[in-house]
């Protein structure tokens, strides 16, 4: 399994043709306390870059973009009652949705962890 990052601060863990998507720890730190997460329903399909989920913090509502194209297997239901999971464990328990990748080739355009760290360091 390997993890990829976008410049919009989403991460995607890829295992075979299944991807798990969330936002990075850096992103949750910038947003502040998250009060609501709207995750997509099973079966929804996204093209890369589509609005896929919404996080609301006390500060702002932000769209989460699909880092790769695919169709949703499940949204993280736990976030409905405990949106704070994103603050506590953004890159683990705070995942947002899983999807079946329709074009694994898109992963080539994403960053690995070291590249993302370097990207964030420049912000």
């Amino acid at each position, binding site marked *: 399994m390997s993890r990829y990052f976008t410049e919009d601060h989403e991460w995607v863990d890829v295992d075979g043709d299944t991807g798990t998507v969330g936002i990075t720890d850096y992103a949750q730190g910038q947003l502040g*306390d998250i*009060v609501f997460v709207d995750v997509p329903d099973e079966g929804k399909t996204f093209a890369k870059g589509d609005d896929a989920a919404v996080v609301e913090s*006390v500060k702002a509502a932000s769209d989460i973009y699909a880092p790769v194209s695919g169709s949703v297997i499940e949204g993280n239901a736990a976030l409905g009652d405990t949106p704070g999971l994103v603050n506590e464990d953004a890159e683990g328990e705070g995942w947002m949705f899983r999807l079946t990748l329709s074009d694994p080739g898109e992963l080539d355009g994403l960053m690995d962890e070291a590249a993302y760290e370097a990207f964030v360091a420049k912000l």
Partner: protein
Amino acid sequence: MSINQSGWRPEAPQTGNADAPTFTGNRALMLEEPLIFEIGSTETTGVDFDDSGAPAQGHKLGNLVRTAPIGLPGLSEPEAVRHYTRLSRQNYAIDLGLFPLGSCTMKHNPRLNEKVARLPGFADIHPLAPVDTVQGALGVINELAFWLIGLTGMYGVAMSPKAGAHGELCGILCIKAALEKRGEGHRKVVLVPESAHGTNPATAAFAGFTVEDIPATAEGRVDLAALKARLGQDVAAVMITNPNTCGLFERDMKAISDAVHAVGGYVYCDGANFNAIVGRVRPGDLGVDAMHINLHKTFSTPHGGGGPGSGPVVLSEALAPFGPLPFTARYEDGHIRLIEEETAGEDHPDSFGRMTAFHGQMGMFTRALAYILSHGADGLKQVAEDAVLNANYMLRSLDDVLDAPFGPSGPCMHEALFSDEGFAEGFTTLDVAKALIDEGYHPMTMYFPLVVHGAMLVEPTETESKAALDQFIGALRSVAARAKTGDESLKTAPHFAPRRRLDETLAARKPVLVWSDPALAQAAE
């Protein structure tokens, strides 16, 4: 000697325990006011109704008639008056002190305006009154329209929009109608610089346009080269706030307008900050096609709880034919007519429609015209000059303790912008804002504009004296110094407000929006 034995024995006050609780929870004039539901009983009423008068029979509500009590608290008149008066004492208002909210122009509301607005001929009329019976009121609208056109150098004005963002929508709908008339409804892009008000992109999106950002230069103004590079046949309009939210005048405004017009687009100017340039700059001379004017900012009508707002939109010759109905027109015989759908006829066939049911905010029109006429053209020019002078005094009195990112860009206009650069680790703009509450001030605008980290935007307005400015500067200097040295007590401010720092996260995650009777809630469990 004869001795007064009343028991009164004057002596010097002792210092005691200042934190000792009181029986009521009140702290002298700082009152611990319960909710209105907790004062009045739902079983009592302040007014005696005659039960026999209730229309038990013959109503036409069908199954919609209420069968259970609504549960409103019953209060006597003095109880109700005292409740709201007590609450008002926990509030902050322009009548209590300097109100530094940047971009909001919280200036004094002259009492002369209020006197004029309360004249029965203005205050006690109905919008459907026959026009022959309300010529004076229509004359006020017409006269104010004349002044707004003159002060902005524009061609026409739509008076009916009810606030700034409503005015933006009016202007954008004029642009949309003009494009469709030209057969260029395919133009879908509205360009919005980073230094514009947040309502601008919202307005454009609401009207069905696609919003694209234009970056700012390092000195806080629109990047003209980037704007020009993006212009094309798909661009409907540019929305620019001038003076902008960094408190700076967009010096390239004429060049921007010329470039936008050259590709067939329109220029919308957010005039919320017109206070800084009224009487000195006419937006019409800068190529603006539409601009809203916040009467509740520049022209001193009350807002921030005392509203309502009012946002007339001045229009260029290109856009005026598309402006909304109704509007007033003075005929050669001095008679003023109201141009509406039935009467517009062939005179105004391209109007995009109506923004409001009636003429607009009449109560604000009377106040704004009273303000304009009491100042005169020369007085309004001085308004702008004094507003800019006060803001620059604020900027230069604080830029040694607070980072002023655009301080080197030259004089500011109506407001001074600072960042959180230099605060001790873990100390934020929010801490400074909360501490200002302890100092007895409403906090400044914070975290806006977005282009500055931890932004603090301070707009003193021209109605503050130097003494009032100096006191606020002293307070902000003191708080800023605490933020820089890392004074831990700042993290828990406010300490002296009726409530301490609120848990905004809990309030957003588990908002309590409806009062429920604790006794009933307990019974239900």
